[in-house]
């Protein structure tokens, strides 16, 4: 039992213990949930201490047998990429609890119990090193989120929850078929073992197999990311979810898809991934532009932020499928950035909702006058989200764009338009909500202590990640370099000489 096991299992232990608290003791339930999530976060911080930042190997590994036939192992561990994703999850969990402190006022016990169960599932997804175990956690995280949306959401919550579940389930089923096939082919679910076998050539998947397996895994991850045009569940789920649900969904759950692409799709089926890359990049760029354009015209703040997610995650997918070191690093960095800044945006929108009980932009105006602190927080977060230098998103977007430019300059040009559009929609929303004549028909108080507690760590991180990347990048670089190395195995590079037209005509 090492530190990582403790980080993983503590939320589940919290889930079980929380069920024992009587349901009338609402305050105790909230405090307990906060205590568990905070403790998990502190424990996970300790992971940094013993972490070798220059190694690409999996660390804090635990490898125990679980089911003997077929051989399924409880195999967990983290590398430089999953380390940060675990920390992102554990950081946002206490924040999610704080956000829900007053927002959730009915069936409080169920809410926080499910929230802890979800944290368990989310951490599990990022630490599982056994394909079967990964699939289990993938689904385990789905169920609590379904309930969070369906029970505590807004008007169209049931539609959104069911759509979310069915979309994800359909993708997962295709992935499951892929996992089963891979197991039969390789005789193991163990991820490091599979990669090892692929690297040393004892497991060769032909191009057809790779294409089909890639398609199966990709379907699950692309829906979860979500990649345009599979994104339609996302605006519904985001808008209808309670604030903490939106935060966890945007910040962590969407990263499951990106992480899956990077961890499984690219290194295990490199030939297929490289073959499909131009098409996928096309979809990613379409998503960047489409998400930004649709966000611009949204009258509903939550929906607007939801569409910015489609746009931002397009950058992540673009970065991953450039197969360059810069692009991959940028993609991972962008995953973290999006987690921090979009999570913060959803939290802020939630704060506004708690005051005014509306998500429509037109119901606001002049909020900056009565609530200057809230306005400042919102401004910093918006600036971060649109990629202003010195703040976090700039770093990730820059890396992705440079990686894309190395492969195909046109990709970078089109993607960069998305950055410009981001400035338009964020600032326009900010202007309509916070500037102008202060509305008299409702009172607006400024940020309270709880809201300070939620926002300050996120804003500190935005600045930190934007100015001092050395804290975060080295482990990412080490691990993504290793993954890129794996994507070169088992691939035939075709260099096709383009025959000039004239020559072609002569040949005829």
């Amino acid at each position, binding site marked *: 039992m090492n530190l990582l096991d403790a980080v993983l299992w503590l939320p589940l232990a919290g889930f079980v213990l929380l069920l024992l608290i009587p349901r009338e003791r609402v305050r105790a339930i909230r405090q307990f949930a906060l205590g568990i999530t905070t403790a998990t976060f502190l424990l996970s911080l300790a992971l940094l201490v013993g972490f070798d930042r220059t190694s690409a190997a999996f660390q804090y590994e635990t490898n125990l047998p679980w*089911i*003997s*036939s*077929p051989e399924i192992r409880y195999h967990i561990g983290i590398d430089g990429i999953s380390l940060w994703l675990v920390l992102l999850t554990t950081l946002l969990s206490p924040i999610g609890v704080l956000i829900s402190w007053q927002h959730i006022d009915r*069936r409080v016990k*169920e809410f926080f119990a499910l929230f802890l169960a979800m944290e368990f599932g989310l951490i599990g997804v990022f630490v599982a090193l056994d394909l079967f175990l990964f*699939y*289990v956690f993938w*689904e*385990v995280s*789905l*169920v609590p989120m*379904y*309930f969070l949306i*369906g*029970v505590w959401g807004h008007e169209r*919550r*049931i539609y959104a*929850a*069911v759509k979310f*579940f*069915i979309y994800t*389930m*359909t993708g*997962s*089923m*295709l992935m*499951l*078929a892929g996992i*089963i*096939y891979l*197991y*039969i082919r390789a005789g193991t679910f163990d991820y490091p073992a599979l990669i090892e076998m692929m690297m040393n050539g004892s497991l060769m998947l032909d191009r057809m197999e790779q294409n089909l397996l890639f398609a199966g895994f990709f379907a699950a991850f692309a829906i979860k990311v979500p990649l345009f045009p599979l994104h339609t569940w996302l605006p519904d789920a985001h808008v209808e979810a309670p604030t903490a649900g939106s935060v966890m969904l945007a910040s962590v759950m969407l990263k499951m898809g990106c992480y899956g692409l990077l961890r499984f799709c690219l290194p295990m089926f490199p030939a297929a991934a490289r073959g499909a890359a131009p098409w996928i990049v096309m979809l990613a760029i379409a998503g960047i532009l489409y998400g930004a354009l649709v966000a611009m015209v949204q009258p509903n703040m939550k929906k607007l932020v939801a569409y910015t997610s489609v746009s931002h995650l397009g950058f992540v997918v673009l970065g991953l499928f450039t197969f360059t070191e810069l692009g991959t690093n940028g993609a991972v960095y962008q995953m973290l950035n999006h987690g921090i800044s979009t999570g913060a945006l959803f939290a802020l929108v939630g704060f506004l909702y708690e005051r005014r009980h509306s998500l429509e932009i037109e119901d606001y105006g002049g909020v900056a006058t009565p609530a200057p602190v809230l306005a400042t927080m919102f401004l910093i977060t918006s600036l971060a989200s649109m990629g202003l230098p010195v703040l976090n998103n700039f770093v990730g977007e820059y890396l992705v764009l440079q990686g894309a430019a190395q492969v195909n300059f046109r990709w970078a040009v089109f993607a960069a338009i998305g950055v410009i559009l981001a400035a338009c929609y964020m600032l326009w929303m900010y202007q309509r909500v916070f500037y102008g004549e202060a509305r008299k028909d409702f009172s607006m108080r400024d940020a309270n202590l709880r809201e300070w507690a939620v926002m300050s760590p996120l804003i500190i991180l935005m600045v930190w990640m934007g100015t001092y990347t050395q804290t975060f990048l080295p482990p990412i670089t080490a691990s993504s370099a290793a993954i890129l190395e794996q994507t070169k195995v088992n691939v035939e590079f075709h260099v096709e000489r383009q025959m000039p037209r004239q020559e072609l005509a002569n040949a005829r």
Partner: protein
Amino acid sequence: MPANFVPPSGVEYIRVLPEIILAAVATLIMVLEPLTPAPRKRALGYLALAGFAGALAGAAAAGWRTGPAFSGMLEVDGFATFFRLLVILAGLLVTLVSFPYLRREEAESGEYYALLLYSVAGQTIMVSAADLIVLFIGLEISSIASYVLAGYMRREKLANEAAAKYFLLGSFATAFLLYGIALIYGATGTTRLNGIAQVLSDPRMAPAGILTGTAVALMLVGFAFKISAAPFQVWAPDVYQGAPSPVAAFLAAGPKAAAFAVLLRVFMTAFAPLTGRWLAIMWSLSLLTMIVGNFAALLQTNIKRLLAYSSIAHAGYVLVAVTAHSEEGVQAAMFYLTVYVFMNIGAFAVVAYFSRKGERYVEIEDLAGLGVRQPVLAALFAVILLSLIGVPPTAGFLGKFYIFQAAVKADLLWLTVLGLLNSAVAAYYYLRLIVIMYMKEPGDSLLELPGMAVSTRAALWTSAAAVVVLGLFPALIR
């Protein structure tokens, strides 16, 4: 008496211990029935419970001394023991659910329990049969008792319709089966399963393909009816809806598992030489069953009909395992059937409890708000529903996993993909139950909801616990 008759030895009686116990207790209940005053009928139920418990022990004892019995008419092997334990356990759980149900409906009688015992006895004979005649007898014992059970509420219109339909269609299907048996006897000169396999695999003795093909097809029709595989499934929704809820639970558990056991044994041993011929049929049968079950379930508003279609869909998944025709396939089918028995009885236990007197509340909408009023019960039901969807870490997921693993190994890639996508469709209608239970405000249907009786609660807890424990530790029964 034939000249080569050898009287059965002592150990052969041990091998049929469960049948002896079940039949003896059932007959005892029939004898005691007229002697028991109405208020004390419950005692007969306890006797039935004891009978099932005894039969479980008997089956375990028989499992210790595996081997043939009665001149090889029965074959008590691991496979038979497994299914014997399963169907007896199903009978036991159904008895538990029946106690409060029959009391509520004021319909307690000894016959009900006796019929249940007889039916299970028939199933234990089916699963251990090594001869088509014995198989047929077991099937008939099981079926006839189930026909009567389906119409047990004889004053209910729907129950009458259910029983009549079940009986007519069931007899029709049995006739098909019997024709098949007759033809195969004509073709091979034997009714022993391994004898048939021997003849069929011997190129010098192999009978005409048209004859064996017809025989296999006819028998398959008979079995397909019993497992409610499409296109022979039409009876199932009506019968499940009309029959008392505990009986519906029973029909989807015991007889179905036993029929699958027989299907597996006949097609994996006797008809193994003909695998090439029946494989394509089985492939289509399983796909069609999954599609019909899942898509029809989407449209249901009555919980019992919904569970009936769900039961059809689950038969389709098990048929995928049969189509894989391998050792893994058989194991996967055994695991899945076990899990399904628990899921199914758990779900019907909730229906039996919730429906109230005269089964007034059986619409899906009636469940609204159950999650608020009865949080523990609703949580258990939700676990069972998630397992029916196939969400890890429940056993329903692992069962599907084993089945599709066997299918992939047998190169049934398309069947696997289509089957898995089917289970995504299935998620929709199971989720609807969860949605209504947790996300809708309570309505009139929750007024005067009594507490759940201890015995139903025991059955529900057992089912839910089994679903979780088997999901985490499948090695317990594999």
